[in-house]
């Protein structure tokens, strides 16, 4: 898993640092994700896992270190120039992201939401974009909602549309930022199902999640973070079933053996 050659490694993060003001959120993070690999980032709130995820597509610009996705590498720190907006946009087009609060475009129908990236960013002809968008909606099982607005959908449906929207860019990598944390418990399954299907198709994925059972089932690797550092990094079952570090054990003890969340406190 620690193979760093470009052929097998899709994402490579080296010595990544990020501070918000005096608050050091990421302290020297190294992370590799193999092509087709699925990595789950777990850890308590404020551990830096969401910030790390947002550094991968540069929605958050790191203070130091380097980020490589596919062939594109950016270095940060003193003496390096920040990439310009066009370069950033081009880079982000190759990474799909799914947000905790869906962030669907409320002024567009479901179909238009999914077509928006291909039409505006990839300059695809409308007819082709619509075909692509319909295929993605069918994939997440929501083709019959094509002409509805997001406000009329359930949370689980919204998140599936958001996944279809990201997939319509045909990204190399998918990033999930607590994709099920804002959902009612009974709607979590349908979203996890779509994610599991993606993983089985060989999509390279980084998933920030509190769904420990899901991470254990679907992720190849689990990375446990606390206070801006990677505490433990290893095969999913090993980290979850037999953690080496005391901090990992303490965190996992908040979850039931089944991996379901206890009623309150953990997601706060």
């Amino acid at each position, binding site marked *: 898993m620690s193979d760093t050659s470009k052929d097998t490694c899709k994402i490579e993060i080296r010595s990544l640092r990020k501070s918000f003001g005096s608050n050091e959120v990421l302290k020297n993070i190294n992370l590799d994700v193999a092509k087709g690999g699925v990595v789950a980032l777990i850890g308590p709130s404020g551990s830096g896992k969401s910030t790390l995820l947002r550094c991968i597509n540069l929605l958050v610009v790191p203070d130091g270190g380097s980020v490589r996705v596919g062939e594109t590498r950016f270095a940060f720190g003193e003496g390096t120039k920040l990439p310009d907006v*066009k370069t950033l*946009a081009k880079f982000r087009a190759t990474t799909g*992201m799914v947000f905790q609060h869906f*962030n669907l*475009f409320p*002024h567009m129908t479901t179909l238009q939401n999914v077509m928006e990236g291909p039409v505006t960013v990839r300059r695809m002809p409308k007819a082709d974009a619509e075909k692509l968008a319909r295929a993605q909606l069918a994939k997440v099982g929501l083709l019959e909602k094509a002409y509805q607005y997001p406000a009329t959908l359930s949370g689980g449906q919204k998140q599936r549309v958001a996944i279809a929207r*990201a997939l319509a860019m045909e990204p190399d990598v998918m990033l999930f930022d607590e994709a099920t944390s804002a959902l009612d418990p009974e709607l979590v399954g349908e979203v996890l199902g779509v994610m599991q299907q993606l993983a089985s198709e060989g999509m390279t994925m980084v998933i920030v999640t509190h769904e420990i059972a899901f991470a254990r089932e679907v992720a190849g690797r689990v990375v446990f973070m606390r206070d801006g550092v990677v505490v433990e990094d290893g095969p999913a079952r090993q980290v979850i079933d037999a953690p080496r570090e005391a901090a990992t054990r303490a965190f996992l003890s908040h979850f039931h053996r089944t991996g379901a969340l206890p009623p309150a406190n953990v997601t706060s």
Partner: protein
Amino acid sequence: MYQWDFGILWGYRWLFLNGLGVTVGFTVVIVLLGLLFGLIAALAMLSRFAWLRGIALTFVEAFRCTPILVQLIWFYYALPILAGVEMTPITASALALSLYGGSFYSEIIRGGIVSIDSGQSEAGAALGMTPRQAMMRIVLPQAIKRMIPALMNQSIIQFKNTSLVSVLAVPDLVYQSQVAAHDSYRPLETYTAVALAYAAILIPLTIIVRRGEKRLAVSE
């Protein structure tokens, strides 16, 4: 007791209609130009560049914090001397009123833009949009809907502000009614009729705005 005689005004009907046409046409021009100035100023105030924000803020505060009557007179008498360009009263007053309106529109537009959840532009950015594309495709279409009632209210004020251009002898409704009042020696009837004319246009408009506000409140 004063003997009202509105019949006298009938003889001036073409004068009034002419003035009303100028007032309405003038309003359309200054609202459109003002919206354009306002949008530019609002985007500049949200810019990443401090110098651009500084220029926009100076413009907005300069026009918001001086009386429009003073601006009209200044644009007609002072600006030509400073800039060395002659301006007709119509040009000078259109420019002053558009910039004045734009300074208020810009605050409405800026407020509308920042009221849109930052997750929206983030989602656009994550798809690979440039900040400009995200603004045009994602943020502005949503923000404009929220701005419309406030923009219409400001435009109603702009409609009333056009009455001030009569001081530069622009032949609007107020200017023409002054002509009629002097000619007929009937200022009471004349100005009462003018007030009613403004009200007849603005009351339906304010009702439309209020309905729009209610519908917006429901849809959000």
